[in-house]
């Protein structure tokens, strides 16, 4: 697909999608939202980008491969859970610290880290599915699986 309208629209919509994703991510602690949904919204920005500019452009725009993202996310989530274990509490126990910033108190905790991990896994998973499917569709679809048939 090579549509100028879609490509122009993308430039306006993608920042909005990314901001929505971050908003979802941050509000997810006590309200509907969180890492999973934020990841899906974030990944949908890539989907849109891929539709407008093709899968190759998505690959180039990602600093890390989808699989590396998944690996980082998974390790980050488990690590966030392990912090509680090192504090002699149950796995995944949330630990919090507070900072005094100029504008008020900022609470940071391990659940945020966990959610970030989830978000990375979701982005990685959605992107790897998306890229596999679109790239398989662009190359010759008949080439695979013939030896079995």
């Amino acid at each position: 697909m090579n549509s100028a309208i879609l490509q122009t629209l993308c430039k306006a919509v993608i920042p909005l999608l990314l901001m929505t994703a971050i908003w979802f991510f941050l509000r997810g602690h006590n309200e509907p939202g969180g890492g999973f949904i934020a990841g899906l919204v974030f990944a949908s920005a890539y989907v849109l980008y891929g539709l407008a500019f093709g899968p190759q452009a998505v690959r180039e725009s990602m600093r890390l491969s989808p699989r590396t993202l998944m690996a980082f996310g998974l390790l980050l989530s488990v690590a966030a859970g392990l912090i509680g274990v090192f504090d002699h509490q149950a796995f995944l126990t949330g630990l919090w610290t507070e900072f005094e910033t100029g504008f008020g108190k900022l609470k940071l905790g391990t659940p945020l880290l966990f959610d970030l991990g989830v978000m990375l896994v979701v982005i990685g998973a959605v992107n790897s599915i998306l890229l596999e499917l679109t790239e398989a569709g662009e190359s010759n679809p008949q080439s695979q699986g013939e030896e079995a048939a």
Partner: protein
Amino acid sequence: MTAVHPLMVSLLTAGMLLAFRKNRWAMRLLSLAGGLVHLGISIQLFREPSGMLQLGSWPAPFGISFLADRFATMMVLVASIIGLAVLITSWIDVESREEKLGFHPMVHVLMTGVCGAFLTHDLFNLFVWFEVMLMASFVLLGLGEKRVQVSGALRYFALNLVSSLFFLSAVGLLYGWLGTLQMSDIAIRLAQTEERGLLLGIGALLFLAFAIKAALFPVFAWLPVSYPMPSFGVSALFAGLLTKVGVVAMVRFYCLLPADSTLQSFIIFAGLATMVVGVLCAIGQSTIRRILSFHIVSQVGYMVLALGLFNGLGLTACLFYLIHHILVKANLFLVGGIVHRIQGSEKVQECGGLASAYPWLAFLFWIPALSLAGLPPLSGFWAKLLVIRTGLDQGNFSAVGVALAVGLLTLLSMIKIWNEVFWKPLPERTEPPPSRRTLAILAAPSVALGLLTILLGVFAQTGIEWSDQAAQELRPQVVLLEEPAE
């Protein structure tokens, strides 16, 4: 050690494996190291079951509970052994392209799902582990990207999705009704309720969901079409673990319910029908893995029958059968893999002559095959004996008769494989025989599993005592309800 340690190890291993995938041997060694650590932790956990753990320190029944009791730790230990065995055979068995596509991380994700399902004490969490398992197994099934594999994977996926749907609906209904999903809490609240109709309805939904996972008659169709498709190692992993997770879930849930004769007779019937249909289907098959696949169905029937008999030795028999079956069935698939490697085919007509060419392989085959059929002194004999003994104790003679007959038919099927693959004269060989190193790597896990089968047969007393203790721990969840907790 706590209940989540095995899960953490698997997840961390999977994460690290995803991160680097260029170097084949680095991947294999890391994967193997993860498997070994998992085994070590499982052994430690089995020796000292750590009991209940509240994830994230959220109190029960609101937070998610994990329970490492004897039953769960026993199953985790057996699963860990099978996982390790498959990781070793995968060095030969799995193509390098499949390894690059993510064979190793997916095996560890699958192990996470399986062990999570064993250890969790929360019904919704169980659903999540089922999904983790389903996702990983779906990827493993389709890794080869051959058309038959993808078609097998699709059927597997479709039927398991139906099962998930039933499961999720039942979980939703149960939560709406009782307001809790923590298993012990469910048991307490169910004992206080008088609404038998609602309980039977939800129970039936859940039973159907687990029945699809466990491949009971008449919803086993996904199993024989998908298991023979991937590489032999993956087949062995699935054969050992996947259906058994369904049985374990069934056992867990059944132990929560107040005694109910309708449900009990239904489960007994389902078990008997599964045993008979599975074994009859197996007779008509012509490839090793299809024969074995139908035997999984038939053997799961024994476990469900034992669960249905429940009282007395019933539950003990079910748990012992589970352990025995996982070891034996995975081993048979591994031996099938060696046969396939040597002969280049798994169609029984095209094989032959292995008894004279590879006598040790014949021996490796006989151990699990005879154990499956239930010949003494192997583990299968004691497992079947326990089931039959329970049937006799309860005066259920039709069940006893069916169990004996199905055992005989199982033996017939094993003899068919023996006659065709091992005894019949060697067909014309086209492929060069595999190297000694190849055979040694493929045979090592099989030898270990065979040894475990023999040990479980010779020291059956210990195994039965473990199963009995596990069963006693499961049972009080029903009895304990006399005094409802706060």
